[in-house]
């Protein structure tokens, strides 16, 4: 039944990739993803992992290698952060359009400028529309579990799609946490070997990535969209089976004291643990506050999310990236659209916080909830914790 270890989360994720029998790793190191790639490189060099490690010259080449490798039918992995994501993003859209089941950890970091190696979700929001399935981990255990789950879903013949597992830079990647590492045999039983739908094969030639003239491009996107939406059922099924095998069950939207809450805080990733402490404090003070944490970001779990928040009067939605829309942030935009489509009116307060590694404290969450409780007219968004 595996064993409980104290391990840096990046190392644990790299070990999990090893447990998944990955065939090819093509990656370029970038802070704060570095330890994952370094450790994988060591595992291959030391003979602990029978895989090809391709030390490419850039992230663009990393994803290009991954596309070739996955098209050839190999189980393929990469990892990146921030500007690294930006450089490989061109190829990400090709990976999803070609329906290649590549798995990538994005260790979330702020996009420059100014240069910041610290954590926020601007790289994740940049990747929002890339056609990759996306989950985001709250803690080290989740980072490991979601990564194993990612291979299972990506390679399912009903899906065949690339999968991005997000984890907060430093706050998760560089922490030493107690983690249950599954046994190899358990992972083998959960994750069957990859059976590619189509692959590069000299005996049976195929063309990946032909030109799509105006009379076929729309149909190509309809097919991709249908498969993307249908992937949710497989994501849920694979989580159920993960729980049955490993004892840890995951849902697209996690809740904490949300059932009777008048105000629900909406978060993603590791900040949710701070938010839970704030919920406890506010509950102690007699306020009906709860938390909804989005774990599945793409495809967005619309029904599940609405079920969680439909009883709340106020929503306090956190965005950890500037989107420069002159309007609501990316997470909140998603949520407002869900509420509007259902004719549901709640007071939605959008706060931008935790940008470029700025701490968000329990007190900050309490301030956000107080603002929501006392204000009658929410602004489109508000950036908190700013020095005037």
């Amino acid at each position, binding site marked *: 039944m595996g064993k409980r270890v104290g391990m840096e989360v990046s190392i644990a994720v790299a070990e999990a990739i090893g447990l998944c029998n990955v065939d090819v790793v093509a990656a370029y190191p970038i802070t704060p993803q570095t330890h994952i790639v370094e450790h994988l490189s060591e595992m291959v060099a030391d003979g602990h992992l029978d895989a090809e490690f391709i030390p490419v010259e850039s992230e663009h080449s990393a994803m290009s290698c991954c596309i070739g490798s996955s098209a050839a039918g190999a189980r393929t992995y990469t990892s990146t952060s921030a500007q690294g994501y930006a450089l490989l993003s061109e190829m990400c859209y090709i990976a999803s*359009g*070609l*329906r*290649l089941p590549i798995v990538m950890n994005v260790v979330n970091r702020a996009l420059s400028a100014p240069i910041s190696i610290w954590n926020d979700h601007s790289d994740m929001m940049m990747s929002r529309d890339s056609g990759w399935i996306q989950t985001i981990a709250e803690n080290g255990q989740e980072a490991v579990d979601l990564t194993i789950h990612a291979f299972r879903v990506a390679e399912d013949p009903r899906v*065949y799609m690339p999968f991005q597992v997000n984890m907060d830079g430093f706050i998760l990647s560089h922490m030493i946490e107690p983690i249950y590492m599954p046994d190899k045999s358990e992972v083998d039983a959960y994750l069957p070997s990859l059976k590619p*739908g*189509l692959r590069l094969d000299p005996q*049976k*030639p*195929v*063309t*990946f*990535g*032909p030109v*799509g*003239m105006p*009379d*076929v491009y*729309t*149909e*190509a996107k*309809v*097919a991709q969209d*249908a498969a993307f939406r249908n992937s949710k059922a497989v994501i849920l099924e694979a989580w159920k089976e993960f729980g049955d095998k490993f004892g840890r069950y995951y849902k697209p939207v996690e809740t904490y004291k949300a059932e009777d809450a008048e105000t629900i805080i909406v978060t993603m990733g590791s900040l949710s643990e701070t938010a839970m402490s704030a919920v406890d404090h506010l509950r102690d003070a007699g306020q009906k506050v709860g938390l909804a944490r989005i774990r599945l970001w793409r495809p967005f779990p619309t029904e599940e999310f609405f079920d969680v928040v439909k009883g709340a009067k106020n929503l306090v939605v956190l965005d950890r990236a500037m989107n420069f829309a002159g309007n609501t942030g990316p997470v909140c935009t998603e949520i407002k659209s869900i509420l509007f489509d259902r004719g549901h009116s709640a007071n939605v307060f959008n706060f931008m916080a935790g940008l470029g590694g700025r701490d968000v404290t329990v007190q900050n969450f309490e301030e956000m909830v107080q603002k929501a409780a006392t204000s009658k007219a929410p602004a489109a968004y508000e950036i908190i914790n700013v020095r005037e």
Partner: protein
Amino acid sequence: MAKETGIISWKQLNLGVAITTPGNAAELRTGDWRSQRPETDLETCTKCGMCYIFCPDMVYSKNDEGFYIQNYYHCKGCGICAKECPVDAITMVQEEN
């Protein structure tokens, strides 16, 4: 892919819009863009094959008599063959429509 047009239901597309029939680009009619077509005067032609070598679309193929003959299904009328022909045997002729 449906021949020539690519017009097909989204449900019939291959995974990732891959093409599983090698060489099917030859089925696509690219000769309908043409405003002029090359015609060869076989009396002048020396069978040197320069048209065959220079044609960017592999329109020319050798017939039994050794002449290089155009396949107008793919010819876009670029005129390179006429320009390169060393004995000026190829004339670009205006298409009617």
